[in-house]
């Protein structure tokens, strides 16, 4: 059992295991902090900056991203001060400038009382939270996609902007994206993710297309089981 620390969030005394982040501790205590890039399956990253909170340690109060700041004994956290809300409003305005249509962003903007962004809107869609890239790396373990460029040219990219050789077409990036930026469809035994086609495997018993061939090959590789073992869908096994 991890060592417990005691901190206060919005005046409430909270116990949390050492090593957890403020966001996790707050969520466990039913205190809502808006966030977009944090995902409990992934390592803390701190990209979207929506989860900013004000902390007081000793005399100074400062702003930190709660999704990457670890809890400590005697830490005082405020999640709703004017300073915090100001920063969050600015952050959501910046995010809206990349994508001012998506309901998830609109909802957070509404909660913060932001109607429109004051910045010129460049409809990019992607908000660069990096969940797709991190999921591919940390959860799936293939690292088929990554970022390219930096600053204003930064975007999620396949190597050389071409067909990603390591991709197993699992669709995890599609699933995890908070703004549904990566399109995926399945048609006539082909799964298409962001314009790239991957053939699907027909179940050897019922004949239904049930998974991308490359994903099954990957399963076979990491489990050291023959490929035939995976060519039957779960329902028929």
């Amino acid at each position: 059992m991890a060592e417990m620390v005691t901190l206060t969030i919005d005046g409430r005394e909270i116990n949390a295991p050492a090593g957890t982040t403020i966001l996790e501790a707050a969520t466990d205590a039913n205190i809502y902090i808006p966030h977009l890039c944090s995902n409990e399956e992934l390592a803390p990253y701190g990209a979207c900056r929506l989860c900013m909170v004000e902390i007081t340690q000793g005399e100074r109060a400062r702003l930190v991203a709660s999704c990457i700041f670890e809890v400590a004994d005697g830490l005082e956290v405020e999640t709703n001060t004017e300073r915090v809300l100001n920063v969050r409003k600015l952050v959501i305005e910046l995010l809206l400038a990349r994508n001012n249509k998506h309901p998830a962003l609109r909802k957070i903007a509404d909660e913060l009382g932001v109607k429109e962004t004051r910045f010129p809107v460049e409809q990019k869609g992607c908000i660069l939270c990096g969940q797709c890239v991190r999921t591919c790396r940390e959860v799936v373990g293939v690292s088929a996609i990554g970022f390219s460029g930096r600053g204003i040219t930064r975007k999620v990219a396949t190597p050389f902007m071409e067909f990603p050789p390591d991709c197993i077409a699992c669709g995890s990036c599609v699933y995890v994206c908070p703004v549904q930026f990566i399109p995926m469809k399945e048609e006539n035994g082909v799964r298409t993710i962001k314009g790239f086609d991957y053939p699907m495997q027909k179940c050897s018993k019922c004949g239904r297309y049930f998974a991308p061939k490359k994903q099954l090959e990957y399963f076979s590789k990491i489990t050291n089981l023959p490929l035939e073992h995976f060519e039957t869908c779960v329902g028929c096994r």
Partner: protein
Amino acid sequence: MKARIKKIIDKYHSNKGFLVPILLDVQREYNYLNREALNLVSAFLEVPISQLYELGTFYKAFSLEPRGRHEMKLCTGTACHVRRVPLMKDNIERVLQIQAGETTPDLEFTFETVNCLGACALGPILVVDGEYHGNISISKTNKILKKLGKKVKIDEEN
């Protein structure tokens, strides 16, 4: 190519932590990061190709396109800007028939603009293959270009 890449990687004891120095060495060897070399590095070090692409596009020191034999960097900082660097930029672009940031098709010249070289007193500055030319003018850039390349036509008067 395989042996050359292997040699570079062995120099760093196949340590993934030295990705950037390895890529720098690869770039020095081939003048840019070519696809084949990156694929070999990826295979030798068991680093996903996406990560190498990420590094290659992140750092300005790396180039995924072939670079010219001569590298020209024109400072466009404030001090240089007010001393008419934009005109010199236009001139170099016209003479080389490329835009800033591009390489001539014969791979002789790569021309780039940089934001500030920190030597404003010498402005306007043009760096050619690591050599700093201060207080340049359009005619001086023409002379420099003439000296470097027979293939470059300069029909302008000096």
